[in-house]
C-alpha cells in the first residue's frame, strides 16, 4: 500500500512537471529535486529496516517519526511550487473562491495559527503514552499515527510554503521567523521530556527489549537528541531561507519602486 502510494505520488508529480515544462519551456529542477528527495525520505521511513526497528527501539522509532513529520513535509511542499500546481488548484479552488463564504472558509483553513494548532495537537496527542503505546500494539492505529505525523508536518510547513496563494493577510518574513520560533519552542519542549525525564515515558520498550545493549533511559535520551537535532537543523535552515527569500522579495519590490 505504501509502495503504491509513493508510485502514485511520483507519477502525479512527473505529470505536473511535464505539463509545466510544456507551458513555460523549462524544467523547475529545484522542485523536481525537492519532491523526489521527499519521496525518498518517505521510502526510507516506511519501507526500510527502520520501520521494523521502530517496534523494538525508541530512537529508531523517533527517527522514523522525525523523517515523516519534520524532514519529508518541507521537501514535498518545496516540490509543489504554485506555478506547477496552478492547473490543479485553479480548477479545484476557483468555484470555491467565487463564493464569499467559501473564500472565508479557505482563508481560515490556511491561516498560520490554525495550521500551527493542527500540528501542535497532532504532535502532542500522539506522543501521549496511552495513545503512543496503543499505536505500537495495533497495526491499524500505527498507520494512523504515521499518517497523522505526516499530516501534522504538512500543516505546519504549509503557511511557509508557496503552494497555496495567500488568501488573507500576507505572511511576512518576520512573522514567519516568529512562527518558526514558536514551533521550535513546542518541539524542543517535547524533546526535553525525552532527554531529561527521570522515568521511562513509554513502558512498551522495556517489554520489547529496548535498544540492544542500552538501558531504557539512555535509549530515551538518544531519542530526544534525534528529535531535537533534526528539528533544530530543519528550523534554522528554514530561518535562513525565510530571510533570504524575504530580502530578495524586498529587493525586487525596492527596484520596482525605483524604476516607477
Amino acid at each position: 500500500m505504501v509502495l503504491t502510494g509513493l508510485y502514485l505520488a511520483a507519477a502525479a508529480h512527473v505529470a505536473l512537471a511535464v505539463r509545466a515544462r510544456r507551458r513555460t519551456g523549462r524544467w523547475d529542477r529545484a522542485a523536481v529535486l525537492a519532491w523526489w528527495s521527499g519521496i525518498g525520505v518517505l521510502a526510507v521511513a516506511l519501507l526500510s529496516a527502520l520501520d521494523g526497528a521502530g517496534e523494538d527501539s525508541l530512537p529508531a522509532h523517533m527517527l522514523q517519526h522525525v523523517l515523516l513529520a519534520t524532514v519529508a513535509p518541507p521537501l514535498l511542499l518545496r516540490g509543489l511550487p504554485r506555478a506547477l500546481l496552478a492547473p490543479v488548484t485553479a480548477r479545484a479552488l476557483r468555484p470555491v473562491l467565487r463564493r464569499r463564504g467559501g473564500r472565508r472558509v479557505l482563508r481560515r483553513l490556511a491561516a498560520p495559527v490554525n495550521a500551527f494548532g493542527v500540528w501542535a495537537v497532532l504532535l502532542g496527542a500522539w506522543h501521549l503514552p496511552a495513545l503512543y503505546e496503543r499505536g505500537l500494539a495495533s497495526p491499524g492505529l500505527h498507520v494512523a499515527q504515521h499518517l497523522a505525523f505526516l499530516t501534522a508536518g504538512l500543516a505546519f510547513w504549509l503557511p511557509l510554503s508557496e503552494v497555496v496563494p495567500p488568501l488573507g493577510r500576507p505572511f511576512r518574513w518576520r512573522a514567519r521567523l516568529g512562527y518558526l520560533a514558536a514551533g521550535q519552542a513546542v518541539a524542543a519542549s517535547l524533546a526535553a521530556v525525552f532527554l531529561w525525564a527521570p522515568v521511562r515515558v513509554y513502558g512498551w520498550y522495556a517489554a520489547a527489549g529496548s535498544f540492544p545493549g542500552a538501558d531504557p533511559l539512555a535509549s530515551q535520551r538518544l531519542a530526544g537528541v534525534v528529535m531535537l537535532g533534526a528539528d533544530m537543523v530543519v528550523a534554522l535552515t528554514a530561518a535562513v531561507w525565510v530571510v533570504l527569500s524575504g530580502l530578495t522579495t524586498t529587493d525586487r519590490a525596492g527596484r520596482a519602486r525605483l524604476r516607477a
Partner: protein
Amino acid sequence: MAAPALARSRTGWLAAGVLGVATVPAVAVATQSPAWSMLLAGALLLAGGFVVMAPCELQMAATLATVVRRRATREALGAGAVRASALRFAAGYLLFYAPVAAALGVVAWMLAGWSWVLALGGAVVAGGLGLAALGLPRGTRLAECRGPLYLLRSGRASLERPFAAGAAFGRYCATCCGPYVLALVLVAGATASPVAGSLLVAAYAVTMTLPFLLPVLLAPARYVVLADRVAHDGPQLRTATGVSLVALGVLLVPVAVLLAAA
C-alpha cells in the same frame, strides 16, 4: 548608566517578565520535586534555543555572504569556488568552536555540585553582552564586539582567507552562544549522562553549521543577495542578537536555581 536606560526600554520590561514567569515554576519544582528539576531546566533552555540561535545563525550567514560576495567580485569566482569558500568558512568555525565546547564540559565536570555558579556566571556574561549589543552601556570596549560588520571592518574576518574568517566568527560566537552551550552541558552533566552531554554539544555544533551552509551549497547565486543587505539590515540583526542575549541571561537564572536543586 545602563539600568535606567534598560528600565525605559521594552527589552527591560520583557526581560523582567520572562524572569518572573520562568523563576516561579523553577523555584516550585526545585523545592517540591527536585527529581524533575532537570527536565524543567532542559525544557526552558531548549524552548528558547531557536530564539538564541537564530540571530547568531543569521549573523553567520551575513558574514559568510559578505566573504563570498567580495571574493566572487574580486576574483570572478564560479559557483564551485563559492561553495569551496563556504566549506572552508564552516571548517574554520567548527575547528575553533569544538574545543571551546569541550573545555566548557571539562570545567562543568570539575565543578560538579557547584555548577549552578557557572550557570549564574553565564547569565551575567550573556546579559552583559546583550546590553552591549543594544548599545546600552555607552562608551565601553564591549560595544565594539557587535557582530559581523565589526569582524569584517576590523580585518579579523579576512576576505582572502575564508577559513580564518570562520575561526574569527567562532571567536565571536563563543562569547555569544557560549553561555547557552555551557548551560546545555551543565544540564546534561547533571543527569549523569556524559553521552547525552557530548551528543548535545555535537548536535549543537552541527546545528549551527548546517543551516547557513546548506543554502550556499544549494543556491550560491541567491545567497549572495544577502551580502547586499548586510550593511542595510546589520543594525536590526545586532538588535535582535542583543535582545536574544538578554533573554538568554534571564533564562539562565531559573536554570541555575534548578541546577542548585538537582
